[in-house]
């Protein structure tokens, strides 16, 4: 059996087993999810909330932006509190105050330490005791707890209205006045928040840990890390070290086995004339640039809301474009422009690989582009109407704001996007088909490319697996299929296969060794990647198996990143292998940046928040966007830009490249991103971490920490880095525009190489 065949079988077995386990875990999550009761009653039988209240409350929460305004169980936006942690702590404090007054004290603080300790134990027992009755499908609370719930409920009803008493908090949390206009909706929203906090402290039947693995950390309610969180964190580090050792051994054993390829004298791709459909992908890259610039604008606005709350330099922007919308669009546009770059690359490269232009391919490429524009404009319009309270709950799920971070589109737009991806799969697949059938040296890489194309098309379908009232634990499960498996998993396979294929076509790599390397890299990547999805789900109402598998396998995701320097060196060396490679210098430089940020953003900052014990304290603090920005832009954004530059070389082969602009853009974006990470996100995250460790998670997210001059100063320190980044982005936009707008011919490759000093 050939080594390629063995690797294919290995990959097939790996995907079969890991997806089987992932689906089994999904069933576990479904079976063990915290119950959403028919009713919440007091001991004397009074109904506080019904399931309909809590479900409609969740719809209200989703319609105002959901995870784009504060977080639930740690997932979402970072300026407003985690509503479950906030409610839980407020409720515990309210119970302590009520008990102290029942004992005749002026307040809880007026009691001595022994009395306070006794009351804390009582409150903990009450909050942790599971009073869910499966037979009656009800939760019963004491009169004392019902009183405390009423106090916290009143606070929330005030917060989401335009009550002047809570105006300072709305400003600190970047919430617009009257976030929820209807009083009944505010009451139902509060009931949903209460239920999420109930699950966060209530112990599972027969266990001493809560439904959310004791998350959030709050000593007042007895929420502390579980033993398995610590144990599996330690194991995961050991797995990581083992994995790095094994991979280093493999690389050493495999090196020097094959002489490097001898590149041809001429650029092999220079002879390939771009087909009409390939040229038509140019408009995808114009859209990439436009969306990228708009995304930066919304990012700056979102960051600014952290200091001015509802205003932008004195203008009351929150009245027309509140934080939850700017953040929604900022995060969605990131995914959209990066996806558009990769879709465009797929459409551009497929005829090159297949060697022919399928009939009506040009029309298909144009039609898909129009569909993508309609989806962006239509879904964003729906989200504006939803968040501004102008749509109503009836249509929100289908056309408004679903409130799930990165998958915020209304269901109609999600289905439309899914159909678009199917069309993309069809267009790329049929152009690739002749190459798959050829069964030559490159057919394995092409096969992998096709597999990733199928996976990219189909896996977005995971985002259609939940309905309007699906349990939040299951929504989170499927959502991470999209965000982790789709974006972080198969796009990565696609990119690895595309880059390897390009290097083979350019004659820089031997097809045989490239095939082995790509298949092996895919196995290594997917070995951690598929079950690594679970590390996002430690605390979303799941079981201990999620902690064990998520911690172990996500640590393995870091293994290839630790050795990525080798890949970066190989990539960097490629540009010097032939004089004509100067034509591809800038795509390659961007690919090297991908390796750098893979190590720093995905590897280092990713692992910082990866282990269960670390994430227990860090989830939803600014250490999460530290990883998010450096990995999403650093890796996938840079990759998108690199791929775009490669395609532009072929789309406009005669155009002169303003390399000075590209050089400045490259360094400005990289330095700007580094400054954002080091001057703001890292120190701010560490301040929050210290606050969480000292007082509890709720405190790290509270206005007492986030609305302080020091935090504001750190946010302001984003301006220098962000300005450099923005200038870099404008330069790359000007560069792309210049390819069409400025006349001038590219110098001959040899001349260019001489000019570059080689």
């Amino acid at each position: 059996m050939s080594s390629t065949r063995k690797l294919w079988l290995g990959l097939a077995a790996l995907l079969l087993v890991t997806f089987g386990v992932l689906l089994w875990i999904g069933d576990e999550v479904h079976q063990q999810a915290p119950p959403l009761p028919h009713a919440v009653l007091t001991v004397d039988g009074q109904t506080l909330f019904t399931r309909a209240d809590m479900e409609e409350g969740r719809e209200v929460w989703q319609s105002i932006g959901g995870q784009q305004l504060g977080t639930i169980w740690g997932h979402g936006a970072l300026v407003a509190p985690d509503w479950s942690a906030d409610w839980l702590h407020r409720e515990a404090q309210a119970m302590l105050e009520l008990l102290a007054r029942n004992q005749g004290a002026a307040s809880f603080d007026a009691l001595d330490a022994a009395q306070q300790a006794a009351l804390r134990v009582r409150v903990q027992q009450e909050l942790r005791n599971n009073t869910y009755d499966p037979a009656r499908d009800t939760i019963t609370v004491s009169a004392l707890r019902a009183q405390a719930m009423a106090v916290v409920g009143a606070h929330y009803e005030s917060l989401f209205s335009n009550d002047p008493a809570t105006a300072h908090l709305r400003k600190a949390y970047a919430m617009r006045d009257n976030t929820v206009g209807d009083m009944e909706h505010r009451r139902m929203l509060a009931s949903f928040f209460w239920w999420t906090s109930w699950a966060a402290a209530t112990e599972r039947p027969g266990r001493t840990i809560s439904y959310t693995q004791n998350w959030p950390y709050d000593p007042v309610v007895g929420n502390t890390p579980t033993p398995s969180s610590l144990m599996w964190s330690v194991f995961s580090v050991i797995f990581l070290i083992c994995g790095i050792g094994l991979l280093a051994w493999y690389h050493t054993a495999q090196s020097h086995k094959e002489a490097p390829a001898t590149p041809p004298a001429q650029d092999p791709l220079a002879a390939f004339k771009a087909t009409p459909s390939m040229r038509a992908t140019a408009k995808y890259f114009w859209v990439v640039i436009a969306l990228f610039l708009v995304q930066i604008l919304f990012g700056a606005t979102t960051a600014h809301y952290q200091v001015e709350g509802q205003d932008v330099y004195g203008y009351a922007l929150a009245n027309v474009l509140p934080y939850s919308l700017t953040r929604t669009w900022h995060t969605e546009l990131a995914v959209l422009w990066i996806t558009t770059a990769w879709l465009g690359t797929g459409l551009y490269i497929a005829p090159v690989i297949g060697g022919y232009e399928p009939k009506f391919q040009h029309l298909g490429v144009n039609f898909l582009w129009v569909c993508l524009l309609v989806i962006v404009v239509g879904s964003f319009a729906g989200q504006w109407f939803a968040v501004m309270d102008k749509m109503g709950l009836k249509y929100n799920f289908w056309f408004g704001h679903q409130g799930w971070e990165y998958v915020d589109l209304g269901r109609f737009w999600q289905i439309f996007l899914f159909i678009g991806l199917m069309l993309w799969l069809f267009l790329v697949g049929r152009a690739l088909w002749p190459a798959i059938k050829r069964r030559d040296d490159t057919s394995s890489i092409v096969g992998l490319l096709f597999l990733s194309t199928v996976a990219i098309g189909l896996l977005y379908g995971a985002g259609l697996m939940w309905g309007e009232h699906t349990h939040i634990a299951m929504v989170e499960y499927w959502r991470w299929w999209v965000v982790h498996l789709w974006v972080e998993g198969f796009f990565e396979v696609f990119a690895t296969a595309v880059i390897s294929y390009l290097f083979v076509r350019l004659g820089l790599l031997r097809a045989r060794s490239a095939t082995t390397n790509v298949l092996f890299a895919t196995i290594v990547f997917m070995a951690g990647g598929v079950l690594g999805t679970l590390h996002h789900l430690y605390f979303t109402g799941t079981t201990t198996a999620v902690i064990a598998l998520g911690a172990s396998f996500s640590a393995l995701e870091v293994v290839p990143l630790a050795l990525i320097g080798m890949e970066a060196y190989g990539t960097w060396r490629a540009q010097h292998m032939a004089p004509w490679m100067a034509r591809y210098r800038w795509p390659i430089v961007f690919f090297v940046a991908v390796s750098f940020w893979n190590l720093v953003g995905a590897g280092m900052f990713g692992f910082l928040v990866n282990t269960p014990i670390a994430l227990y304290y860090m989830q939803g603090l600014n250490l999460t966007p530290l990883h998010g920005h450096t990995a999403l832009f650093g890796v996938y954004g840079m990759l998108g830009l690199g791929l775009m530059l490669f395609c532009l070389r072929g789309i406009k082969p005669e155009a002169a490249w303003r390399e000075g602009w590209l050089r400045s853009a490259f360094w400005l974006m990289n330095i700007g991103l580094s400054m954002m990470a080091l001057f703001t996100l890292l120190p701010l995250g560490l301040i929050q971490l210290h606050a969480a460790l000292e007082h509890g998670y709720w405190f790290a997210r509270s206005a007492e920490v986030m609305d302080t001059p020091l935090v504001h100063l750190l946010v302001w320190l984003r301006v220098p880095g962000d300005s450099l980044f923005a200038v870099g982005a404008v330069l790359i936009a000007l560069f792309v525009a210049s390819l069409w707008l400025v006349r001038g011919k590219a110098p001959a490759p040899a001349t260019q190489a001489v000019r570059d000093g080689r």
Partner: protein
Amino acid sequence: MIEFYTQIKWVHIACITISGTLFALRGLLVQLGHGGAARSAPVRWFSYAVDTTLLTAALMLLTILPRAMFANGWLLAKLTLVVAYVALGMLALGRAHTPGVRRLCYAAALLAYLTIIGIACAHHPLGWLYLWLA
């Protein structure tokens, strides 16, 4: 951020001074035929560092100061001149093709810079003139 008003204001003033002095020196180097030194990477990146810090401090002051303070339009006048100063500065430091135009732009940029300082000190669009008349 009102707590840090004094510090931010001084950072702003210090950056304006450094930025203006740096531009004057770089422009002088260009005039003396040492354009390469004026445009060398360390000098450029130092200039970016100063200018982005200056911008940060300016934006912070904008959110701290009451809007009524800008009612007479002095900020708009200042910002317009800043744009002109940046454009003239780029031309003076090498973008302009002839030495004569570079010299002219250098002088005009310095004049714009001094006018900006006057407007900022006077909090009035007339700048030095307003201070003199007052």
